[in-house]
C-alpha cells in the first residue's frame, strides 16, 4: 500500500497496490514555495478573497496552501521543504460519513470526494473531521459587490465552469473536476480514451517548477503512477488509514 520513505520499492507491484483513479504527485524537492499554484487554483475555481483581517484570523479560503516550517533555532535555522497541501481525495474520506445531508459524498466513477455546494447546510463537521484541514468554509459573502465594491472587477475573471459559492457552504479542492469532465467529454466525442497529461489541474498547469503531476494512478504507464513509486514517496498522515490520492516526494537530492 504505502511506500516507505528511503526504502526501495518493488516497482511492478506498486501500481497494483494503489487504489483509486485520479491521483497527484507533489515533488517537494522541486517546489519553490512561489504560490503560483495557489493563485491559479483561486482563479480557476472562483475562490473568494477574504481580506487581510479574516485571513490573519485563519479564514483564508485558498483550496491549496503552501506549508512552511523550519528546523533548529537561531542562528542554525534550516528551512524544510515546502509542503503544498490540498484535499487529498482520500479513498476512505473521514469527511464523508459525518455530513448529515450527504453534501460530502464519494464519486464511485471518478473515485473522488465530492462537495455538493447546493446541498451543504454548513454544519462544518466535515471540516472538523478532515485530518489534513483541507476544507474551507464560506464565512461571509466575501465577493458581494454591495459590501466590497472594489472587488467588482474581479468577477470578470470568474470561471464559468465552476459554481460561485455563497456564505454558509463548505468547499475544497476538487482535483479540478471541471477539467476532468471537460477532458472526458472531449475524449468521448472523439471516440478515444483520455491521454496521459490531457487533464491538467490549475495548480499543475501554473507550477513553474513542474512540481505537481496529475493523472490516472490506476494505469501504471502514466507519469503520475511512475512518479509515485520512487523511494522518495510518502503520504501525509498515513497511519490514519484515509488512503489519500496525493503522494509527496521528498528527501532526495
Amino acid at each position, binding site marked *: 500500500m504505502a511506500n516507505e520513505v528511503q526504502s526501495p520499492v518493488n516497482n511492478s507491484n506498486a501500481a497494483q497496490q494503489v487504489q483509486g483513479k485520479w491521483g497527484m504527485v507533489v515533488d517537494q524537492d522541486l517546489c519553490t514555495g512561489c504560490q503560483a499554484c495557489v493563485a491559479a487554483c483561486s482563479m480557476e475555481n472562483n475562490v473568494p478573497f477574504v481580506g487581510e483581517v*479574516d485571513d490573519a*484570523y485563519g*479564514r483564508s479560503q485558498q483550496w491549496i496552501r503552501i506549508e512552511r*516550517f523550519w528546523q533548529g533555532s537561531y542562528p542554525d535555522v534550516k528551512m524544510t521543504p515546502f509542503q503544498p497541501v490540498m484535499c487529498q481525495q482520500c479513498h476512505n474520506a473521514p469527511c464523508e*460519513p*459525518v455530513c*448529515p445531508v450527504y453534501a460530502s459524498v464519494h464519486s464511485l466513477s471518478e473515485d473522488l470526494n465530492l462537495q455538493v455546494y447546493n446541498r451543504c447546510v*454548513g454544519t462544518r463537521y466535515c*471540516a472538523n473531521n478532515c485530518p489534513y*484541514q483541507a476544507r474551507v468554509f464560506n464565512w461571509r459573502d466575501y465577493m458581494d459587490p454591495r459590501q466590497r465594491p472594489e472587488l467588482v472587477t474581479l468577477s470578470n475573471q470568474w470561471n464559468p465552469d465552476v459554481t460561485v459559492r455563497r456564505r454558509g457552504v463548505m468547499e475544497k479542492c476538487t482535483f479540478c473536476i471541471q477539467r476532468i469532465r471537460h477532458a472526458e467529454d472531449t475524449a468521448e466525442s472523439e471516440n478515444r480514451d483520455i491521454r496521459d497529461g490531457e487533464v491538467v489541474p490549475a495548480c499543475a498547469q501554473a507550477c513553474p517548477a513542474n512540481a505537481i503531476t496529475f493523472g490516472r494512478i490506476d494505469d501504471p504507464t502514466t507519469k503520475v503512477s511512475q512518479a509515485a513509486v520512487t523511494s522518495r514517496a510518502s503520504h501525509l498522515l498515513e497511519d490514519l488509514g484515509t488512503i489519500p490520492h496525493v503522494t509527496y516526494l521528498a528527501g532526495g537530492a
Partner: protein
Amino acid sequence: MSAIAKPFIGSHTTEQEDPHEHLMHDPLPRGEMNAMVLESMHTTTWKYWTLAGILAFLVVTCLVYAWYILIMQGLGVTGDNRPVYWGIFLVNVVFWIGISHAGTFISAILRVLKIESRRPFTRAAELMTTFGLVQAGLSVFMHMGRVWLSYWLIPIPNERTIWPDFHSPLMWDFMAINTYLLCSTMYLFLPLIPDLAMARDRSTGWRKTFYKVLAIGFRGTEGEWKNLKTAMNIFAFAIIPVMFSVHTIVSWDFAMATRPGWSSTVFGPYFVIGALHSGMAAVAVVLFMIRSTMKNMKYFIRPEHFDTLAKLSLMVSMAWAYFYFNDYLVPWYGGDKWEKILQDFTQRGPIGWLWYFMLFCNIVVPWSILWNKKWRRTPWLMAIVGLLINIGMWIERYVIIPEALTINRMPFTWQIYVPKLEIFLTIGTFALFFLLYLLASRLIPLIPVWEVQEGQEGHILRKIGKAQIPTVSEID
C-alpha cells in the same frame, strides 16, 4: 471500660431531628396547599416585572437582533475559523442539554427509586429540562451555515428525492434530541394535568379558560388516574435510558472525529455524568431562586431538599472526577504526541488558568463544601455552589471544543479561537431561559400539589419503642 462511645472531635449534637421539619411530616389540608400555590402564581410584584422587562430586552437585542445579524452576514461575525470550526455555539448546545438532564434525573430516577424528598421539586426540574432543550435547539440552529435549509435534516419523503445521512452523528443527534424533547415535554405535561385541573377549579377569567383548555377535561376518576399513573410509570422507566442515550450521542459528535483530544472512547459516560453534574447544580440554583422570590414556597421547598440535591451532587462530582481522570490519564500516559501537545496547550497555554479554574469549580468546590450537613441545608450556599459548578462545567465544554480544535495534526493551521458575536447570543439564550422560567412560574403551578399530598398521606410517625419514627407507607 465505658461502653458509651465518645465523639472523636468536638461535640456533635445528639438531639433528635424534629420530624415536622420535613415537608412530608408537616401536612396541611390540601385546600390550603392549593391556595398557597395559586397565590404564589398570582402574585407579581414590581420586581418581577422589572426583571421580566430586562430579560425581554436582552432576548430582543442579544438573541433576536444578534441572530438576525448572524443569518444575514454569515458566520464570519462569530469567532470561528480554521481549525476551530465549532466554537461557543456547540459549547452552549452541550451545556444546555446537560442542564436539561437534571430534570429527567430528578423526575424519573428519583421517582423510580421512590425517593420521597423529590416530591415538591419534580416540576421545577422538568421545566428546566424543557426550557434547557429549547436553548440547546436554538444553539444548534445558530451554528449552522445555512440555517434556512435546516429542514433538510428531517427524514420525511420530499421532492428532492434525497434523505439525510444516518451515518452522521449529527443525524443521531437530531433523532435523539427530538425524541428527548418530545418525551420530556410529555412527561412534564402528564403529572401537570391534575394540577391544571385544580387551577381550573379555582380560577376565573382568562386563567380559567387557559387552565380549562390545558386540563383536557380531567376529573380524577379511577379510570383516569389509572391511565395517568400507568403512562407516568412507563415514562419514568423509559425516559431514563433515553436520557443516557441523548448525551452519549451528543458526545459522539466529538468522539467520532479523528481529532486529538476528541477521539476518546470514554466520552459517552463522561458526558452523561458531566450533564448530571451541571444539571443537579442548576436545579439547586433554580430552587433557591424560587424559594426566595415566590410567596409560600418556603413551605414546599425546605433545607431537606437542598440536602438531598447536595448529597446527589457530591456523588456525581466524584463520578465526574473519576471519568475526567480517565480521560486525562490515558493520553497523558500514552505518548501520542498530538495529545500531549494538546494537553500542554490546555494546561500551560495562554488560557491555562481556565483549566485550573474548571477543576476548582468542579472538584474542589463540591468536595470541600458538600460533605457538611449544615452547609448542605443552607439554600444560599447551595445556590452559590451550584453556580460555581455550572461555570466550571461550561468551561469544561469550552476546553473540550474550541481549545481541542486549536491543536490538530497539521500545525501550520493552528489558530486560537476568539469569540465575538457568540458572546451576545449566549447571553441571549440565558436570558430566554430565565424569561421562559419567569413566565412559566406565573402560569403553571410550580409545585405538584397532588404528589405532595399523596406523599403526605403516606408518611406517618410510628411509635417504635420509645421514639416516634418517621415512616413511609407505600400507598401508591
